[in-house]
């Protein structure tokens, strides 16, 4: 078989062209997948590094001193709380106004504090622990005994209280135990000095552990200055046993770790030893360890970002707390009402243009007009809506102005796609119907529109897509109220607008991404169901 030179050349060209096409296809797919997967990943999973004054060691049963039994803090099961730092606990109990759980759990839920009646050694010790230098505020409710405390906490939304460890054995699922974090790392001031433009930044819990195992011997190894590490263990008395237990679970203590017997001795040792580091309870340091430097600990917090709670709770504090339920509902309302206005007008307009209008110059101008409008940036529509509907018609910033403006915006899209769909219906369908003695209206209603409906539906879906993703128009016409839309003139917020606001106001990246993921899902859902619907329509028609 002889292949001519020309054939070889053409074949080579085809190979090269194929290569290019494949390259661009793969490039496009990678970019698309990367964007979508990145947003979805950030939407579902969050990972933040947060600095705390305390280590991430949690205690469920808190030993306060040798004389009273350990205390357990309990919360209502509806409070999505895992652990609290000691400072947070004290704030909750002592702040002059009623706190909300928002800063700790992002729930828009009031904190209901409970205490046991004073007078017993246990209660006095615990109350002293939670009030610190302040006093327990007037909002705290007193429960008669541990059993009624469990009852009250389990029946009051947002409740927090405490019980002796012995009473905590049979609480079951009625209440949830909140762990407390109260172990701080203290260092000698020399550790934090700036030498040659180097200063030690916060430590991670793992680094702290390594220090007490003797694996880190110089502060240089954790980003600090050239200074030997001098670990000092807390006193051996009972409350501190938990630190010994947690920092060195196997009981191995390297020789260079210095042991102390009392709190005073511990503080003194830290103060006088350059390069010293030790672990102690936060309150002890605040009260007796004057002049000691509390080293911040960097904790990695990660988990599910987009939870069911985020979907079903109403937003609060500009979206920083709560969820996005009202915003999702607002979005669907906007879509619904926009379609209610735009679909009849658009479809009927297109029917007129295709079926009735004389195909002359006027129709050409109309067609050019709709095409131009379909391509105009939405911010221009926003400007128009804000001047015309909001100001000139005096509708104000609110739902009706936004609906009308978005209707204006998507109308050209619906008209154009419907026109194309109607034009694509073979003329033979119309002839067949007319030849049977049907009128023009009957022909359009019973043959042309059903045959064109997949195309018309596609146009409507494109319009829904634009509505869901629309932001620029809505900034000027819908406002930014994140509550449920109450009436035509009520300001509201939809998902895209919520995303924009949360990002612009730097409220929370995690929640912005979660909202973005929801947007992606809505678009995905709409597209999927439309594809299904169009497929079914086509099957019914036998295509």
């Amino acid at each position, binding site marked *: 078989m002889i292949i001519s030179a020309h054939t070889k050349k053409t074949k080579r060209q085809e190979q090269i062209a194929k290569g290019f096409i494949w390259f661009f296809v793969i490039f496009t797919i990678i970019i698309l997948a990367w964007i979508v997967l990145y947003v979805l990943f950030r939407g579902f999973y969050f990972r933040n590094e947060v600095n705390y004054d305390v280590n991430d060691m949690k205690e469920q049963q808190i030993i306060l001193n040798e004389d009273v039994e350990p205390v357990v803090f309990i919360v209502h099961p509806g409070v999505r709380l895992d652990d609290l730092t000691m400072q947070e606990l004290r704030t909750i109990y002592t702040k002059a106004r009623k706190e909300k759980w928002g800063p700790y759990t992002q729930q828009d839920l009031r904190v209901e504090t409970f205490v046991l009646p004073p007078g017993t050694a246990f209660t006095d010790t615990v109350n002293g622990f939670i009030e610190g230098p302040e006093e327990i505020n007037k909002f705290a409710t007193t429960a008669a005994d541990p059993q009624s405390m469990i009852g009250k906490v389990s029946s009051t939304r947002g409740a927090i209280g405490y019980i002796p460890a012995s009473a905590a054995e049979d609480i079951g699922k009625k209440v949830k135990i909140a762990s407390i974090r109260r172990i701080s790392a203290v260092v000698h001031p020399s550790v934090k000095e700036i030498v040659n433009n180097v200063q030690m930044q916060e430590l991670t819990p793992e680094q702290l552990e390594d220090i007490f195992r003797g694996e880190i011997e110089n502060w240089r190894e954790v980003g600090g200055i050239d200074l030997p590490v001098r670990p000092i263990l807390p006193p051996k008395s009972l409350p501190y046993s938990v630190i010994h237990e947690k920092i060195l679970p196997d009981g191995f203590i390297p020789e260079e770790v210095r042991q102390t017997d009392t709190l005073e001795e511990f503080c003194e040792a830290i103060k006088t030893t350059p390069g010293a580091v030790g672990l102690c309870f936060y309150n002890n340091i605040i009260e007796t360890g004057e002049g000691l430097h509390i080293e911040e600990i960097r904790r990695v917090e990660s988990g599910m970002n987009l939870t069911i709670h985020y979907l079903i709770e109403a937003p609060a504090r500009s979206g920083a707390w709560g969820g996005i339920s009202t915003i999702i509902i607002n979005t669907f309302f906007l879509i619904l009402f926009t379609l209610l206005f735009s679909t009849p007008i658009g479809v009927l307009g297109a029917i007129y243009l295709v079926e009735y209008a*004389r195909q002359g110059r006027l129709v050409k101008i109309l067609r050019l007009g709709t095409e131009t409008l379909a391509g105009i940036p939405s911010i221009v529509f926003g400007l128009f809506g804000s001047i015309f509907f909001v100001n000139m018609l005096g509708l104000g910033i609110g739902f009706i102005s936004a609906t009308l403006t978005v209707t204006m915006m998507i109308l050209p899209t619906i008209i154009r796609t419907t026109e194309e769909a109607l034009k694509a219906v*073979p003329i*033979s*369908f*119309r*002839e*067949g*119907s*007319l*030849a*049977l*003695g*049907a*009128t023009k209206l*009957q022909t359009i209603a*019973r*043959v042309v529109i*059903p*045959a064109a409906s997949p195309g018309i539906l596609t146009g409507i879906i494109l319009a829904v897509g634009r509505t869901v993703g629309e932001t620029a128009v809505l900034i000027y016409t819908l406002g930014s109220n994140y509550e449920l839309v109450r009436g035509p003139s009520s300001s509201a917020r939809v998902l895209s607008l919520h995303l924009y606001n949360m990002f612009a106001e730097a409220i929370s990246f995690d929640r912005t991404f979660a909202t973005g993921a929801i947007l992606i899902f809505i678009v995905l859902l709409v597209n999927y169901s439309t594809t299904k619907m169009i497929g079914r329509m086509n*099957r*019914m*028609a*036998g*295509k």
Partner: protein
Amino acid sequence: MEKNETKLKIKVDNLDLYYGDFQALKEVDMDIEENKVTALIGPSGCGKSTFIRTLNRMNDLIDDVTITGNITYDGTDIYGGYDVIELRKKIGMVFQKPNPFPMSVYDNVAYGPKTHGIKNKAQLDEIVERSLRGAALWEEIKDRLHKPALGISGGQQQRLCIARVLAVEPDVVLMDEPTSALDPISTSRIEDLIDDLKKNYTIVIVTHNMQQAGRISDSTSFFFEGVVIETGPTEEIFFNPRNKKTEDYISGRFG
């Protein structure tokens, strides 16, 4: 003598038709007799399709059409006194390409009656069955009445279109090259069907296929450049043409 016995169904008198400035039909005269098959033959672009479409006023759909002359159906001028909807009910049409609507077989046949106000389910069922039987399709399709019409074969689709026309109980059935898109077997079934339909309907058929015209028609008209060159009983046209052009066309010398 025989001619006097048959009744005249449609009479075309001095028909001129213009598309804008272009004259597509020139002084056409034609008599279409009841319960006969009239075939219109002629080369492409000769005006036979245009002519057949004037008979049920399908040319009304096109802008810029001017029609002069007279067409009477049962003695009434169809461009004068006759309502176009009533006319199209009486004079049905089957098109070149099968054009069933994108709905079920049943709905296709019931479309006409429904459009004309019949809502009774039992009555519709009866019409659908009768029409499909009339179009020799019932036995093949009775189990698939609710399947999409676009899913059946081309020949069946065309017979469905005939059934759809029969469902509105017409008087005249116009057929514009009904078999040109079909295979020989489907074609022969449609031809048999036309032979059957002749008993109850007057049929006008446009065809490119000379043998077909010869097989099925009672009278034939030869169109050329918008003019009816010759018209007469089929045998005469085929075996004893008076005009040279007719003879040339029929013997395949042009067209």
